[in-house]
Every structure is written in C-alpha cells, then in structure tokens.
C-alpha cells in the first residue's frame, strides 16, 4: 500500500516536494513505523526528526497510533504562527 504524507515548511523544502510517499506491504502501521520509513526514504528529514509531529486526519497523533493508507497524513515541523 502506498502512504502519502503531506509536507510543510522546512520538511517540504528539505524533501523538495509537497508530498512524500512510502510503501508498506501491510496495514495498519504505527506512526513510529511510518516515521522511520520516511527517514530511510528521505534522509533529508533526519536532522529535524526529534521535532517532527505526525498528524492523522488533521489531529496530532502519538507514536503508538495506527494509520492506514486511506488516512490523511502529514509530517509537521516546529510551528511558528502568530
């Protein structure tokens, strides 16, 4: 299954695309699995890894949360609104 992950700000720039894509041969997967695969496929993300948050269906998700390829996924760097 293909998982598409929206990218913003510094993660979008690091990858050079608005969306990342990773493939798994099973689902659901955990947020931890998703992150580690993203870092393998897109090494440019590793430097900010400690600060990145995964959002699932527009909500912040814990590392233990599970996701499927139909969920809306995003990888969010440190936020600085206001």
């Amino acid at each position: 299954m293909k998982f598409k992950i929206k990218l913003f700000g510094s993660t979008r720039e690091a990858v050079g695309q608005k969306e990342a894509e990773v493939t798994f041969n099973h689902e659901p997967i955990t947020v931890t699995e998703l992150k580690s695969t993203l870092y393998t496929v897109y090494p440019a993300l590793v430097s900010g890894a400690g600060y990145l948050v995964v959002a699932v269906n527009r909500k912040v998700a814990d590392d233990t949360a599970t996701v499927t390829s139909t969920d809306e996924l995003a990888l969010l760097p440190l936020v600085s609104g206001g």
Partner: protein
Amino acid sequence: MIKITQDPIDVSAVTDSVADDGSGATVLFLGTVRDHSDETSQVSEMYYEVYTEMAEAALKEIEDEAIRRWKLKKFVAIHRVGTMQVGEVSVAIAVSAEHRKEAFEACQYAIDTIKKTVPLWKKEISGSGSRWVKGVKLESTK
C-alpha cells in the same frame, strides 16, 4: 468566526464584527511583522505557510473553548498567510465580553494557543537570505 486568508486583514472590520450591545469590553490583538528577530538584524518580509484544513479545525476549537470558558459575546480570529511586509498584520483576534477581565483573558488564551496548536510556519526573508523561524512542537488541541 475564524478564517485563514491570503488577503490583507481589515482591522476595523474585525473590530466591528465583534460589536455586541450586551458587551462592555472589546479586546483586539494584532500580530505584526517585525523588522528584526533574535537571529536576524534586518528582516524585510515574512512568508507564512499553513496546513489549511488542520489549521481551520484547530482555530475552531480555540474559538469554541474561548467562548465557552469566558462566556464571550463574539469571537473573531483571522490569520493571514503568504508573503507580508514589515508592519503588516499577520494575525488579528478580537473578542467581546460583558466585562474587561474576561475579554483580556480570552484574547490572551487565543493567541497563546494559536502559537502552540495551529499548524503555521513562518520564514524570515532578509537581504542575506531566508530562514524558517524556530518554533515549538505542535501540540494537540485537546
């Protein structure tokens, strides 16, 4: 009412929109683009990026919570995105309440929470280049 927009924010319209005959206090907060930061001595413009759908949902939760907790008459929060010049308004929050204490507290809560729970990113642009502003880890709205 909450909104994410590319357009300049009309501050008078924001203030007018929280007018309420039952309110004795209106508080307006404006966030503006500063000409410098801790890291950059001369900022010329600021670029804001947003995850629109998630940001709208997070703003809505802030609105609901502020109205509920401080019994506000009206609440408006507008965040602009895109490129802004020094002095331009990036965010406007206006609240009206029966008394000033509730209005001040609710407005402070709204801007403090926006900074933690709304997925927005800003990039300083200066003569010597550009950099994403180091922010905070996004927190859950609930």
